[in-house]
């Protein structure tokens, strides 16, 4: 056994890596190296114009940021990945609650509120076409909260 701080290069590296206080540092170093590669390849990246769920905003609509066309309680054209899997695609997007309808008819500047009250493109994506994402994500919140609450309630042991 050699004393601390000496030994071959290999055993010195081993000692550094085996201290878990450096874990985050080692990982950060890895990310930095990969990101530098990313910066170097940046000129070869290009933005794909044929995006799904692209944004097309009608500035004149009273539902300004969330108007994706269509009439309430009827379908709207939404550029989904697999439209055939969602038979009611577009209905949620076009849906308006009576309250929302009232706001839309009377004002110009309450767009977000109106459409977000269930209905609108984000709800279409989050609840319908990509609902599984939301399942997972609310489960994550659930689990994280369970951990925090467990530790908190256990308190000092």
């Amino acid at each position, binding site marked *: 056994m050699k004393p601390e701080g000496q030994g071959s290069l290999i055993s010195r590296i081993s000692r550094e890596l085996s201290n878990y206080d450096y874990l985050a540092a080692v990982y950060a170093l890895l990310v930095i190296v990969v990101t530098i590669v990313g910066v170097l390849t940046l000129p070869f990246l290009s933005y794909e114009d044929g995006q799904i769920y692209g944004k097309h905003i009608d500035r004149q609509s009273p539902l300004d940021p969330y108007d994706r066309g269509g009439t309430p309680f009827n379908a709207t054209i939404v550029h989904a990945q697999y439209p055939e899997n969602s038979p*009611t695609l577009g209905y949620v997007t076009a849906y308006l609650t009576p309250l929302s309808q009232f706001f839309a008819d009377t004002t110009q500047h309450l767009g977000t509120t109106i459409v977000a009250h269930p209905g609108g493109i984000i709800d279409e994506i989050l609840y319908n076409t990509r609902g599984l994402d939301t399942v997972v994500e609310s489960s994550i919140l659930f689990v994280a909260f369970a951990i925090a609450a467990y530790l908190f309630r256990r308190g000092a042991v």
Partner: protein
Amino acid sequence: MTGPLYIAGLAVAFAGILVAFYAIMRESDDFHRILLTDLAEILALVLIALVATDLAEALILPGLVVGISELMAVSEVYLVKEGLFRPQYPPLSIEVMDTAPAILTLALVAYGIVLSGFTGGAVAGVGAVFYMMCRGHDERFAVIEAASGYAWALWIAAFFIFMVAPQYWLFAVMTAGGALLLKVAGKMSLVGTMRGGSNE
């Protein structure tokens, strides 16, 4: 338009990642590390936001929730690990803490309910957290937790309505919006109750 802007944005984001991770690499204090991970979280969201479609917007919400969840869990582990169970100082009140909470909370919760879903839950949650922070909490922990658990189950049910019986989409969207609001707001407001000593 979006194309060149995207690459420019990506360049700034990458530069930010380099700086932030360099700082993480050099940091040895555990709480400073937590603060820096919060910064990293923002950079992750920038990368998603740059996609600039409706989908990107929808993806930011899960990203955000993952971030706050991990922050909650890890900071609690930190407190336990360091053996910090009581606040260092006695509770303290500023004048605004007596007057502001009711109005602010009312406004935020009402607005949150109108928004519904995640966003509504988060906004209403801020109101609730603020209220509990200022006014102290009573022993409603279990009740809120149970309510939020039922809301979660309700949301899962709504998801399956969408997948199995899409013709009831209206019912599903109302259930989903309401349940998520309740669930997120509930969980977030519980954070507010976790301020005092351990809740035996």
